[in-house]
C-alpha cells in the first residue's frame, strides 16, 4: 500500500506543497485565471504577465488546496515562466496525457521530468482533478476568459 502512496506523495511533491514557489499576487499582472474544484471546494487563482511577444514573463498564484494541487500549481509556475503561450499549452497537453494515460504508457510520456513527479496521480483517479486544476486556470488566463475554469 505504501508504494502507491509514496509514488503519489514523492519528496518533491511534499516539498512543493509545504513551500510553494511563486506564491502570492504579482502586481501589476496582464491577465489572471481562476480555477474552482467543485468536488472539494478548492480554488486557485493564477496571476500572469504576458509580454507583447506572447512570452510568460512572470506568474504567481494564490489559493488553498491539497498537497497535490498546491505542488502541481507550484511546479506549473516554475515550468511555464519564460515560455511562450504556445509552449505552455503544449505542456498542458503533455501533462493531461500523462495523468490520464494507462500506466504502461507513462514511460512514453513526452512530459518534462519536472512534471513526471506527478505521474503517480494516475493511480488515484479521484485526484487527477487536483493535479490539473491549475492547468485549467492557466488556460483560462491565457485565453483571457473572464469565465471560471473548473477541472472537470
Amino acid at each position, binding site marked *: 500500500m505504501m508504494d502507491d502512496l509514496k509514488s503519489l*506523495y514523492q519528496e518533491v511533491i511534499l516539498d512543493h506543497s509545504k513551500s510553494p514557489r511563486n506564491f502570492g499576487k504579482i502586481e501589476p499582472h496582464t491577465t489572471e485565471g481562476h480555477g474552482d474544484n467543485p468536488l*472539494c471546494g478548492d480554488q486557485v487563482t493564477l496571476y500572469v504577465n504576458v509580454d507583447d511577444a506572447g512570452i510568460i514573463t512572470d506568474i504567481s498564484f494564490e489559493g488553498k488546496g491539497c498537497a497535490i494541487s498546491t505542488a502541481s500549481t507550484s511546479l506549473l509556475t516554475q515550468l511555464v515562466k519564460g515560455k511562450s503561450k504556445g509552449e505552455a499549452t503544449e505542456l498542458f497537453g503533455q501533462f493531461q496525457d500523462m495523468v490520464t494515460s494507462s500506466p504502461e504508457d507513462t514511460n512514453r510520456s513526452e512530459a518534462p521530468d519536472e512534471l513526471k513527479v506527478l505521474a503517480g496521480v494516475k493511480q488515484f483517479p*479521484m485526484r487527477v482533478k487536483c493535479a490539473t486544476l491549475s492547468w485549467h486556470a492557466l488556460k483560462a488566463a491565457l485565453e483571457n476568459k473572464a469565465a471560471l475554469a473548473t477541472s472537470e
Partner: protein
Amino acid sequence: MNDMTTFDVEKIRRDFPIFEEKIHGKRLTFLDSGASAQKPQVVLDAVKSAYAETYANVHRGVHYLSQKSTELYEGARETVRAHLNAESLDEVIFTKNTTEAINLVAQSYGLMALKPGDEIILSYLEHHSNIVPWQLIAERMGATVKAVPINQDGEFLMEEFEKLLSEKTKIVAVTHVSNAIGTIVPVKEIIAKAHDKGVPVLIDGSQAVPHMQVDVQDLDADFYVFTGHKLFAPTGIGVLYGKNKWLEQMPPYQGGGDMINRVTFEKTTYATGHSKFEAGTPPIVQAIGLGTAINYVNEIGFDKIGAHEQSLLAYATEEIRKLNNVRIIGDAPHKAAIVSFTMDGIHPHDIGTIIDQAGVAVRVGHHCAQPLMDFYDVPSTVRASFAMYNNRDDVDALVDAMQMVQRFFA
C-alpha cells in the same frame, strides 16, 4: 417489533455482505454512511425476488404479475406511511431521491404560493439540495431566500429564526440533521413557531431517518422528505410526505402516464392523491427495497440503534480529540453520529487518499454544504459518519490511520 435481546452489532454486520470485502487487502472501515449507507442481505433478496419472481409494471395490468408487483409496490407505500405515522397513503409520494422531493415541493408549492417580495427561510446548515431548488423557484417568482444563522457550535439560532419570520415568509425549509456536522435541529419547535404565523415547513430528513424514529404528525411537519439510499435501501428511491391539505391544492410537477385522469389535446385532467405527483413508471423495485429496509431497521429498533450510535459518537469524539492539531467542526449538544474535522497543515483530500490505503472510507470535501463551510472558513473537512453497523474497531482504525497520516506528513 423490537425484540428484547440486546443490540448485537456483530450480528448486524453479518447481515451486510459488503463487510466481507477487503479494501487494498485491509478490513473495510466504512465511515461514509452519511453519503450513502450499505445494504443488508434482506434488501438484496427483496430486490432480486421482485425482479426474478413477480416482476411487471404496476397499476394498469390486470394480469397476475402486474397485480403482485402492484401489491408489493403499494405495500411499500403503506410501510413508509406507518413508519412516518402519516395519516393517509395519499400523503406518501415516491420520488427518485430527496433532491427530487424538494424540487417537487419548491416548484409545485412555490408556483402556487410565491409572489414577488415573498420570502423562503432556510438555514446555514442546509445541504445544497435544500438550497438550490429554492433559489431556482425564488428567482422565477421574484421571491427571496433568507438563511437562519448558526453559532460556532453549529446550533440553529432560534431567536434569529423568529426575527426572520414575517408575513412575507411563505415557507420554511430546514434540515432535521446536518449532514456535514451532525447537529440535530429542533424542528418541532421550528414548526410550532412557523405555524404560529401560518407558515408551512418542509423538513429535510435525509440524515435523520437512518438514526431516529420520525413521527410526522407529532412534529406536525407539512412536508417531510428523505432518500432511500441512506436508509439501507436501494438507490433511485426517495420519499415526499406532504399533508393532504397542501398536496390537494398543489399543481402537478411532472406530466405523464399514471398522473392523469383523462388526456385530450384540448384538455387534460389530473389524478388525485399521490398519483398526481407520480408521473411515469415509478422506481418500483426500489420502493419495494425501501419497504424491506424499513422493516429491517424497525426489527432492530431505533431506541437501540440510537443508543449504540451515541456511544460510538462519544468514543470517536474523545479519540479524535486526542490527535494533535485536530479541530472538530460542530460541537452541538445534540448531534447525530457524525464527526467532521480538519487537521492543521494537512488537507482533507490528502487525508482521505492516505487513510483509504488503510481501508478507511471517510468523506472529504464540502459535503454539499458550501455555505456552512464558508461559515467555518474552511473549504472542506474530513467527515466520519456512523451507522448502526459501525463498531469501536472502526473508530480505532480511523484514529490509527490518522496517526499514519501525521507521520507521513511529519
